[in-house]
């Protein structure tokens, strides 16, 4: 059923992979906690894309349903995460992750 307007699945997968990797890299190199958190969201988005892509590939809607759950989780995480970040900011007066290293060794 491949038509002229078809796009090979791997393209989507690669795209999602790139997003995911960008997220990981962001986690590794960003200093600002909020940005780090955003890069996690980026990773999730990447995953979402591959979910949808696979869904299309298998002709299974469940793949799309997963995306909702992921979003919900992302939302919940966002709420909690930002609350935590606020709490940390209260006690530390900083958002630089390199300075949040009270606990070590």
């Amino acid at each position, binding site marked *: 059923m491949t038509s002229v307007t078809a796009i090979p699945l791997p393209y989507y*997968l690669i795209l999602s992979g790139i997003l*995911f990797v960008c*997220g*990981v890299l962001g*986690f590794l190199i960003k200093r600002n*906690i909020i940005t*780090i*958190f955003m890069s*996690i969201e980026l*990773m*999730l988005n*990447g*995953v979402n894309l*591959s*979910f949808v*892509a*696979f869904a299309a*590939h*298998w002709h*299974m809607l*469940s*793949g799309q*349903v*997963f995306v909702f*759950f*992921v979003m919900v*989780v992302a939302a*919940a*995480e966002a709420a*909690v*995460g930002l609350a*935590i*970040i606020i*709490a*940390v900011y*209260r*006690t*530390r007066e900083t958002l630089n992750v390199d300075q*949040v290293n*009270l*606990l*070590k060794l």
Partner: protein
Amino acid sequence: MTAITHLPALLAQTLAITPPTGSEYIRILPELVLSFFGIVIMIVDPLLDEDRSHKSLGAIALIGALAALVSTFFMAQDPGNAFWNMVRVEGFSVFFHALVIAISAVVILASYEYMAVQRIRAGEYYGLILFGTVGMCLMSSAVELVLIFIALEISSISTYILAGFRRREAASSESSLKYFLLGSFATAFFLYGVAMIFGATGSTNIDKIASSLASGSVPMLAYVAMGLMFVGLGFKVASAPFHVWTPDVYEGAPAPIVGLMSTGPKAAAFAVLLRVMFEINAPGRFWLLWVSAALSMTIGNLGALVQDNIKRLLAYSSIAHAGYLLVAFTAQPELGTSAAMFYTVSYAAMNVGAFAVVSHFGNVGEKYVTLEDYAGLGKRYPALAAALTFFLISLIGIPITGGFFAKFYVFSAALQSDLVWLTIIGVLNSAIGAYYYLRVIVMMYMREPRADVPCPPVPAATWLAVAVCLIATFYLGVLPGRVLRKATDAGMGMLHISQNTTPGATVASGQ
């Protein structure tokens, strides 16, 4: 979850879907009970006078946990799948339900005094424990990766929050942050793995995945997927090299909560790992687990040698124990499963107990958690110190304690699978491990007490918690037979192996 009550009718009218039967609700009864009590707590909390609320709330939470424990019994009555094969009730899930719920019950008990001393908001605390337990329970019974993912998130997020509950200490919020960020990071890996397995097999149902992997050649994606899922789960069970978060988080988090998260979510995560590795006969897992086990044992034990903070020390020890547990995963499934399950139980017993004691000694703001503070506790709290000693002995793995049999089963399973070297690494590690547990005992008994360390009286609740753990540890150390039997049956059930053909059985009967 309140929606559930009126939902079936609605479904029936709108989209002609046969609603779940009553028995299917029974199969998630513990979860329902827990959520119900959680909600009750949330409702009751504002109504109560803040000064005294923590007692009554704790009572409610405890009742809820016990009720859930009872309900697992009902749940166990009719095994089977529920909610369109989302959850499965079988020996395996029942086993972990009981374990997890019991853990949170004891932790709730142990938190009684802690609440009072640390001046923590009781409502959310207990509520989160109960809701978190829901997540853990679902992790053990879910056979659908998406549900597993959500359950995992529930238990994780609740523990992220609980870790940050000592809000006057910067350490607590920091540990919360670290746990949260790294946790989500790892979860993303897990999720990516799920996506790939979905892509590889077109399903996220454990059974379907298993069957499709079993039929024909395993697609490449599946390997990658397994790898990614292992990263996520390995992080949750704190196995090297994904253990890095453990010491910091444990050090910062409230002691009873450490007791919880070093056992409850861990046990649940191991349950998931068992399903993923064994029920889906995960391809190419052996060396992954082997190396991870060896690394965890070694890093954990070596890292603990020089720790002066008890919580941190126990954190490293928990890494090491995760390693021992993973040894079981390298063994043949039918041997390894039961060994691993038994290990989770006995580890829970001794570790929760240890942390209960630690949380009492810690006192306001957990000021007294270094080895120096433990000097001479044998004189001040003979009984409590003796209890802690017993737990530590169990952690070392000396006979008549659950810890011994746990190690014992794991290693004999490994040996029966001819994993001689891993076993040797393991026993050597347990020998090294003896040293740092011994340091604590030495401190308590062989040093003079420090005058400046206050010793408040031990409240009944703490006693009860410690006693429960003590009895459990001792029972597992003297008569492990029954629990092991249960574990074996459950494991066989999960692996869809019929009883009479298992090597485990021959072992059990001996010659």
